[in-house]
């Protein structure tokens, strides 16, 4: 059996209506998996960058990249996995914050270099960025205290420049 692995793809596309739908449709129509997807304009406002995290064995991921390249509106597909790259995800975490847990939450958030962006008598909303490992570690610590809601962006990534 070929092993299934996570692959981070960075895709430059024409910034036009319908392009996202073409890409999402390609993944669903061919049974490929999207773990997360992020999209926004680049410095050139005619071009958007999509970051997709997908899971699959090597031949499947090769096929995914070729199929993406075949779409007329796709300008360039890079696979980051296997190279040096930076990736980050942003999470907003709304915690139930009772008097007895407030200090503990602040301590944890501080360790992870997060920020409190909204406070109420019964809650904190935390903003934190990091790679997937860091966010998972934070969530593991916060879960027992009581997470009310969570919103995550999914990964964005760029190659590191050669030193």
């Amino acid at each position, binding site marked *: 059996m070929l092993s299934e692995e996570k692959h981070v793809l960075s895709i430059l*596309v024409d910034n036009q*209506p319908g392009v996202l739908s*073409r890409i999402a449709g390609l993944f669903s129509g061919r049974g490929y998996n999207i773990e997360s997807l992020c999209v926004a304009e680049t410095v050139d406002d005619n071009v958007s960058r999509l970051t997709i995290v997908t899971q699959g064995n090597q031949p499947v991921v090769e*096929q995914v990249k070729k199929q993406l390249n*075949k779409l007329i*509106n*796709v*300008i360039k597909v890079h696979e980051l996995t296997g190279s040096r790259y930076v990736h980050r995800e942003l999470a907003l975490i709304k915690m139930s914050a009772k008097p007895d847990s407030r200090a503990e939450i602040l301590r944890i958030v501080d360790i992870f270099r997060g920020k409190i962006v909204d406070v109420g008598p019964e809650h904190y909303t935390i903003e934190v960025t990091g790679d997937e490992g860091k966010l998972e570690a934070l969530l593991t610590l916060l879960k027992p205290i009581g997470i009310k809601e969570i919103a995550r962006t999914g990964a964005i990534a760029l190659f590191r420049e050669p030193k």
Partner: protein
Amino acid sequence: MKLTGAQILMKALKQEGVNTIFGYPGGAVIDIYDELVKTDIRHILVRHEQGAVHAADGYARASGGVGVCLVTSGPGATNTVTGIASAYMDSIPLVIITGQVPSHLIGNDAFQEVDIVGITRPCTKHNYLVQKVDELAQIIQEAFFIARSGRPGPVLVDLPKDVINAVTVYHPPKKAKMRSYNPTYNPNMKQLHKVIELVRMARRPMIFAGGGVILSKAHKELTAFARRAQIPVTTSLMGLGAFPATDPLWLGMIGMHGTYRSNKCTAGCDLLIAIGVRFDDRVTGKTDAFAPQAQIVHIDIDPTSIRKNIPVSIPVVGDCRITLGHINKLLEKEDLGNLSEKRSGWFAQIAGWKAKTQLAYEQGTDIIKPQFVIEKLYQMTDGEAIITTEVGQNQMWAAQYYHFNDPGHFITSGGLGVMGFGLPAAIGAQVACPDKVVVDVAGDGSIQMNIQEMATAVQFGLPVKVVILNNGYLGMVRQWQELFYEKCYACTCMEHAPDFVKLAEAFGAVGLRATRPEAVEDVLAEGLSAKKPVIMDFVVEKEEGVYPMVPAGKPITEMLLV
């Protein structure tokens, strides 16, 4: 110069060399039709929009150009979907122009509004919703460029009514060049040197060619290559005509209903050179057992076709014609040794397979065998007719018993397998080739799916011939039920069918029927010589099967022979 959207569209179509459109009018495109009749573009008014797309498909394949359709919004657009999906699977260059409700109504569930761009996204090579009249000329040019370049395919352009009517200063479009679309035509020469080396070393080589050879017009290069290197050739259904069936190197078709020797060769070869194919499951059978001893070279312009279904030793991304041209050049300088000696064992083995099992049937004295009809048709048209097909047993018998020497002569819905394809496709082919004999080999089931197009053929004086192999069954499905479902013929018996002779006459065409073997030649002779559209109804053996047959999912060497 100020022009309306409709006028710009006409200009753009003329620019692309369009002289024929297959279409059907409606409210959303009425302004386009109003301009169309002022041009010298010929409009073939079909009877159903599905027919328009299949006709454009047949036209594109017979002419080697791009087929064009024009339909209205809503139901006009949705009726084209099957035809578009078929053209997409078979990589046929089409441009489909659909009307759309005015821009300000889009998204409001307006009368005859449908999101046809959304619906056809997965079955077009690309599609457009034109938002401003100023983009129109450029988009039409891009649409044709995309449809015909690289791996061809259908492109849809959706035109809102306000865009059609808007007036603007016309600027001729820039030459279509797109940063995000740049097909690879020229192969990597390093890969080709490896191919030459394999050809030199191989003891049991084989060529497997497909529709890509026909699309890239590489048949001459393919034939030269096979003859020079003395390599036997098989093709997929879509590749029939890419290599002359009268050549001694011809093995017959590969796959589920391929010839015995062709499938045996695949299992026995040590080098398989695949050109312009995509290794469809109807070709490979069980993929693990496909060409187990072979190094596989795969030449195709579409990188996604390579290593999608079958592992490949040497991938070559490039246009088939250009690539084969390079290979032939390299071979000129190459000493391949004494080929007849080198290949003698392989050719002897192939001759043995051929002697063991050939395509065959026995024509008795009472009931017409469908294969006999096709064989006679082949003889009586000197193998030069353009054959379109419906889908099912009729399609396979046409593929097996009509022998094709030239590309563009076998026109079938290969990838999608659309019943109802053959008659409109024949109409399109006849428009492209008015001097050719064009025959739709049909089943009694399939022909009823688009039989309304007989009226189109009569109206436009297109003398297409329909040969119905009338077995009273949805025969191919019945055959599966016979073999794999204990003869439980669930819903495959067409208990009632129209009288096709009277029906032909009602359309203003000629209707003929043969019920006995001795009448076959007479009916064909009369039908083929008629200057009008003709339906020939051949009442054939009801439970005849198509053989050889590889059950779906089995290795292609596991052939049922009778």
